[in-house]
């Protein structure tokens, strides 16, 4: 546990007036291990620790707490700050219907999240439309239909050849039936698949979503920076969703995604049931990552 590890390093600090650079440096080596065990990306961890080092060096050793606890507080505060604010506010379009586009790698939890978002917005008095725009995965449309039915939310599914066309048809349907917002479930795809990434760009250009939400699996390891950065460079997504947090993955991917995209994590998914959606709390995530 982090406190015990750092306590050992700082035992020698008793009686010294200031947190010295060498002592901090040694302590941060241990913190780096903790971060890597939590799946924080190597470079992100390095940059993060450099900032902690800057903040910690030269600080006076407060009498009332151990030097280790002092450094941990700096680490914790720095991480909470980096993980961002607690706002799960979703932007609304000036011209309805508002479109929320949901994207991400294969299997990250997009379809389930779309249904959860639909339920969440319905509970707040909106009349959402779920759009089954994954034309590729076997029974993807059936999956969204079944989920939509279970929560009494309208779902749009059309036998289109291309996802962007299906999305446009869904917009017409939404306008005709006064459904708002429109939540688009897209097929999972690799960030290195140029054709499929261009498809997302096309949907974005034709529909002008108020939000593009990047859904990431909380057990993702070092690769989180690669996929997040690529999706962000292509689409400038406005928010991230972290899923499967009902597991015991430490979730360092959260820090990695924040660090490379600067976008807020808006919601977390904490179970398979459709009510398992929570607002993201940076302090809780920081505790989880630091173990």
């Amino acid at each position, binding site marked *: 546990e982090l406190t015990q590890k750092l306590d050992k390093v700082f035992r020698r600090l008793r009686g010294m007036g200031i947190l010295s650079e060498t002592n901090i440096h040694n302590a941060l080596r241990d913190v780096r291990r903790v971060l*890597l065990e939590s799946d924080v990306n190597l470079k992100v961890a390095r940059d993060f620790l450099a900032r902690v080092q800057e903040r910690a060096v030269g600080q006076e050793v407060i009498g009332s707490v151990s030097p280790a606890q002092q450094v941990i507080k700096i680490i914790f505060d720095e991480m909470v700050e980096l993980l961002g604010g607690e706002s799960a506010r979703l932007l609304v379009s000036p011209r309805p219907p508002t479109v929320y586009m949901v994207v991400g790698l294969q299997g990250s939890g997009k379809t389930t999240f779309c249904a959860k978002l639909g339920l969440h917005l319905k509970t707040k008095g909106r009349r959402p439309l779920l759009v089954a725009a994954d034309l590729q995965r076997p029974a993807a449309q059936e*999956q969204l239909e079944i989920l939509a039915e279970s929560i009494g939310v309208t779902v749009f599914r059309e036998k289109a050849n291309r996802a962007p066309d299906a999305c446009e048809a869904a917009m017409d349907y939404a306008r005709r039936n006064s459904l708002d917002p429109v939540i688009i479930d897209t097929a999972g795809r690799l960030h290195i698949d140029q054709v499929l990434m261009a498809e997302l760009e096309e949907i974005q250009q034709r529909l002008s979503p108020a939000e593009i939400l990047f859904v990431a699996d909380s057990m993702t390891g070092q690769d989180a920076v690669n996929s997040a950065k690529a999706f962000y460079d292509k689409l400038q997504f406005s928010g991230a969703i972290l899923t499967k947090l009902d597991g015991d993955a430490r979730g360092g991917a959260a820090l990695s995604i924040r660090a490379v995209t600067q976008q807020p994590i808006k919601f977390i998914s904490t179970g398979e049931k459709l009510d398992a959606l929570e607002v993201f709390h940076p302090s809780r995530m920081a505790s989880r990552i630091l173990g």
Partner: protein
Amino acid sequence: FKPGRKIDDELLAELEEVLLSSDVGWETTDELLSRLKDAAKEDRGKTEPEELMRQVIASLLGEAEAATEPADNNEKPRVILVVGVNGTGKTTTIGKLAHYYRQQNKNVMLVAGDTFRAAAIEQLKIWAERTGCQMVSSMHGADAAAVVYDGFESAINRGMDYLIADTAGRLHTKSNLMKELEKVARVLKKKRETAPHEVLLVLDATTGQNGLVQAKEFTRAIPITGLVLTKIDGTAKGGILLSISRTLNVPVKFVGFGEGLDDLAVFDADTFAAGLLG
């Protein structure tokens, strides 16, 4: 890693970075570098450091390969249970495996053991159609163990070579779901002592250190006989495989590198090692 480099501290630091960035994890990285240093002493500069590192990685994976003997290879149907956490690619892998065995002119039957997730049965049905396999299924919400048992009976009666059973994705932290998995295995075992002949844990290549915890917990519930690494067509290296293989002493059987029927290959340690360092 230009040719002609010595295995000095600078190279070791670079290798450490590459391995850690590939999700190999601390302990296994230390282990690999220590083995590299030993190998380098014996090698006395005859081999390039990168090639030596590949050999060290491949041999670590080979140890697990050697530790397992194929169980009851001649029994029919050979029952393959496919398990893992949510979204890793189990159902798709079953489609690919069905195709793989069908290409060997084997009779394959599928059983829709995921009775929980929306459209899971419909999804497997499409793979059954694509591969020309029969599928046993029940209703959404039916008892998973009962459906898998029915599938086994059916496969025996029809003289199938393989029965591949899909199961619902589940987090290892959910004890009731792990108990359900134990029950599925128990029910198969009651029918025939040797079943399930294979229990494949499907792992997503993007998974970080939690992959090791997953493997340990799954194997506690129901002994894993092989690993399948999926989504290796992405940029993730799947380095967690090394820790898992080393800790569980279980071989990697297949890799999935795409969403199509043909996107499955028998695992090759040298190819994997090259990809890890590349």
